[in-house]
């Protein structure tokens, strides 16, 4: 089977969702949706046995072969891991949403369509081998994320958050597209596999660093790295299942995927190692530091997600060092990155679901109002406790293992001596350690402020109680995974991590079995990581205990001195600036626009005509001028003068008709009956139209035109007239290629079965033109109708927003 088609399965399923939602009111639509990720998960799981051996599978759907663009599904260890995350977490999230979103109150039709759209897009991102289709899916994830954040579109904050995430991620996406195009130019292919094969030649290419930076912009905006992370906290306006799915487990990891996927291409660069590691570490610290400031449960989780994404990013950067050094100490980083990526998806997914449950059952997410829920919501508390402790990096939870490996990798950087790392490398473990302390603090802050302590009576909008069993299934499953992975890390490594690591570091490993890393919880008393963790726990506990004393210092940061203020300012500025520029030339008067258009046309055409030396008059090519033509021309000129000089509009309209009829007569004289006929009828209809609208037009002398505007109009009109005349003369005087008329004459009977060439051209030879012309005509007709009807409506009700 062509499994590339499976990427589109969710989109196809989405087509039926609105119907199911409308017709099957009694069953929650989510139950139908649940089948999609579940089937995909089971299907992709069958690939594990193959990728474990280092195998991969390819399936291609040709799209635009002439430009080398196609949909390619390439499944290796890395894309399989992500596919399983997307479908696995997707199943749990859909299950959770069935209980979270009320089937009678919510617009489930919209919700699940967006969610399935996202699922397809995300699968496309992680499986595409073609960078152009990867970009397509990448932007599709941004759009579906936009729709999901704005799902409660009546709320101001939702719309703001949706727009913000869209602006930032689409900006990054466009930069990334630029990077892809540069890569395409360097490698002369859009296939990632072929690019990787050609990568050693790229180093030193003019575009190499530029492509690298552009690609990283895409990855950093998507994965909420500093300073682009600001969209993620605002994205928390989305329904909680969406936050758990898109904004912690999958979409924000697309940037990590991108960095991992392109590591074999860019890791040769010093800039790559510095940027990925440095920005990652900075984000890790920044996110964890500001997470403690937040008071909204989901905001805490959002900042913690930012920080954890930074952690994984820095590990990916540290993993790139293996492309420069063979030392075994650097090998841990990439393994730790993938390991932590899995762990983060499990514990953060469960924490988001718990935050949603708390919100759902108490009516608030404000941590200042919560407290003492432990006895009322024992199951939720247990899951939240497991998740938070894993996040803090404590045993016996999976976060402990990957956190230890993280610290180990950061310590290892000290031994890297290239690229001025020897001067600065001490900073890496220090920042990592400080960030870990804050991670510890916000983990405790999240779980204990919500569930421990005294209940604050009367503060909660609802009487709290434990969530329904169905809602707890998904977080409990994730919680079990968090504990389970701690006890079987090497099995997980064998199935998922090592195939992925082998795919990222083809230079080190031929196949997954070559990855010689064994995860252990205990490294002995002499391991530095252990003492670092002990230090984190001690200092962290101390800081948490004194939290109320120092948390208020966050208030010292001025409100208008932040990245968010910068974003708001930029948005405001661009909106106002654009408005000002538009107002400068948009007067709202059609005649102003006509002047722009006509003067531009005549100036542009005249300049080209003389610059190109194209003005030629060949008297021999002209037709013989007869008596009738002269009489007709005189009539025409008289009629034109009369239009200009007439005192009343009625007279002007009638003389305009006379102008048209004399033009029609010219067609008759020069034997063009079709044109003559058309011109006559058009003239008749338009004169009638003028007469119909006559009584609504202002009197001719009331146009309020000064002599000056009349002069301008006169000059522009003269210019257009001269332009058209000169172009007509030159066009007729020189023929670059033989006329097509003979071809029409020869074929009109045989090819088109007609006799009248003019009409056959219209309906057959150039049927496309006619088709679009009538489309334009229809739009014009409906446009006029719309404008007049709208104006009528406004007369009745001056405020159209009401």
């Amino acid at each position, binding site marked *: 089977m062509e499994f590339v088609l499976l990427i589109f399965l969710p989109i196809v399923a989405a087509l039926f969702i609105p119907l199911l939602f409308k017709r099957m009111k009694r069953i929650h639509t989510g139950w139908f949706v649940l089948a999609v990720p579940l089937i995909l998960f089971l299907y992709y799981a069958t690939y594990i046995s193959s990728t474990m051996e280092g195998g991969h599978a390819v399936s291609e759907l040709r799209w635009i072969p002439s430009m080398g663009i196609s949909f390619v599904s390439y499944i290796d260890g890395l894309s399989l891991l992500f596919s399983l995350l997307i479908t696995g977490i997707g199943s749990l999230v859909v299950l959770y949403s069935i209980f979270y979103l009320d089937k009678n109150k919510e617009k489930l039709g919209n919700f699940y369509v967006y969610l399935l759209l996202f699922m397809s897009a995300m699968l496309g991102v992680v499986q595409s081998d073609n960078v152009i289709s990867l970009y397509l899916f990448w932007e599709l994830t941004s759009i579906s994320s936009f729709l999901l954040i704005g799902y409660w579109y009546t709320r101001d904050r939702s719309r703001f958050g949706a727009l913000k995430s869209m602006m930032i991620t689409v900006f990054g996406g466009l930069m990334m597209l630029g990077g892809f195009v540069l890569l395409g130019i360097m490698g002369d292919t859009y296939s990632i596999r072929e690019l990787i094969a050609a990568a050693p030649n790229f180093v030193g290419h003019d575009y190499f660093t530029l492509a690298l930076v552009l690609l990283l912009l895409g990855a950093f905006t998507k994965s909420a790295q500093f300073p682009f992370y600001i969209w993620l906290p605002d994205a928390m306006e989305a329904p909680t299942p969406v936050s758990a799915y898109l904004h912690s487990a999958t979409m924000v990891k697309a940037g990590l995927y991108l960095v991992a996927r392109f590591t074999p291409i860019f890791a040769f660069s010093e800039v790559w190692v510095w940027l990925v590691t440095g920005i990652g570490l900075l984000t890790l610290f920044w996110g964890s530091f500001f997470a403690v400031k937040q008071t909204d449960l989901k905001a805490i989780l959002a900042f913690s997600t930012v920080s954890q994404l930074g952690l994984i990013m820095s590990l990916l950067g540290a993993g790139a060092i293996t492309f420069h050094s063979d030392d075994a100490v650097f090998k841990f980083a990439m393994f730790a990155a993938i390991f932590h990526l899995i762990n983060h998806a499990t514990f953060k997914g469960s924490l988001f679901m718990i935050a949603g449950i708390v919100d759902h059952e108490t009516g608030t997410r404000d941590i200042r109002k919560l407290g003492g829920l432990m006895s009322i919501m024992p199951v939720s508390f247990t899951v939240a406790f497991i998740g938070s402790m894993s996040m803090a990096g404590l045993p016996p939870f999976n976060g402990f293992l990957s956190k230890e490996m993280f610290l180990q990798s950061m310590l290892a950087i000290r031994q890297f001596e290239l690229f001025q790392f020897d001067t600065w490398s001490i900073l890496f473990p220090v920042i990592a350690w400080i960030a870990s302390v804050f991670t510890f603090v916000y983990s405790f802050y999240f779980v204990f402020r919500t569930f421990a302590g005294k209940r604050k009576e009367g503060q909660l909008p609802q009487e709290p109680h434990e969530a329904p069993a169905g809602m707890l299934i998904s977080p409990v499953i994730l919680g079990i995974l968090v504990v389970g992975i701690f006890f079987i890390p090497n099995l997980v490594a064998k199935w998922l991590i090592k195939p992925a690591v082998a795919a990222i570091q083809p230079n080190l490993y031929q196949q997954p079995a070559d990855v010689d890393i064994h995860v252990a919880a205990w490294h002995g008393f002499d391991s530095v990581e252990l003492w670092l963790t002990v230090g984190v726990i001690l200092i962290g506990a101390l800081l948490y205990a004194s939290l109320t004393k120092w948390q208020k210092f966050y208030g010292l940061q001025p409100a208008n001195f932040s990245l968010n203020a910068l974003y708001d300012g930029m948005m405001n500025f661009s909106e106002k600036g654009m408005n000002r520029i538009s107002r400068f030339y948009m007067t709202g008067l059609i005649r102003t626009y006509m002047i722009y258009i006509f003067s531009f046309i005549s100036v542009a055409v005249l300049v080209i005509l003389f610059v190109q030396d194209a003005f030629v008059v060949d008297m021999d090519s002209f037709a013989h001028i007869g008596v009738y033509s002269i009489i007709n021309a005189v009539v025409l000129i008289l009629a034109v003068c009369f239009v200009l000089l007439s005192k009343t509009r009625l007279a002007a309209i009638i003389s305009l008709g006379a102008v048209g009829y004399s033009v029609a007569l010219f067609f008759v004289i020069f034997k063009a*009956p*079709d044109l003559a*006929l*058309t011109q006559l*009828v*058009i003239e*008749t*209809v338009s004169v*009638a*139209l003028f*007469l*119909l*609208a006559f*009584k*609504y037009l202002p009197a001719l002398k009331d146009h309020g035109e000064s002599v000056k505007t009349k002069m301008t109009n006169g000059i522009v009109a003269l210019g257009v007239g001269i332009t058209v005349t000169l172009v007509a003369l030159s066009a007729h005087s020189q023929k670059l290629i033989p006329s097509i008329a003979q071809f029409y004459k020869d074929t009109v009977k045989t090819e*088109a*079965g*007609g*006799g*009248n060439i*003019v*009409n*056959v051209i*219209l*309906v*057959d030879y150039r*049927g*496309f033109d*006619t*088709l679009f012309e*009538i*489309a334009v*005509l*229809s739009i*014009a*007709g*409906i446009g*006029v*109708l719309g404008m*007049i*009807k709208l*104006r*009528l409506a406004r007369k009745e009700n001056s405020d159209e927003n009401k």
Partner: protein
Amino acid sequence: MRTNDVILQTTTKVVFFIIFLFAIHIFFAGHYTPGGGFVGGLLTTGALVLLLLAFDLKTVQKALPFNFVIVIGIGLLLALGTAAGSIFFNVPFFTHAFDDFTLPLFGETALHTAMLFDAGVYLVVVGSAMTIIQSIGGDA
């Protein structure tokens, strides 16, 4: 717009049909002699405008109860459908077909899919022109 011109109204009743029939003739003759869907459509519009001038908008709307916006839609669909129909015969988009047939009453007649396309053009022209005229004329 209320007119009460007996001579104009009486003449119009006859002339309208003459113009209309001429428009139909010109439309059908278009493939071999001057004419076609575009002119035919305009001429029909001309006939209708004459009706509008002689009588008022409401009377005409009562006599010809078409929604001209829908006429536009039908015309566009017809034109596009004719063009797209060729795909089903495995020839490129917009390939026309024609042949001679012996029909009762008409005798030897050339039938042409271009005529269907032209009919679409005809309907769009009539529809758009009438939509514009009616909305401008009706904007009181």
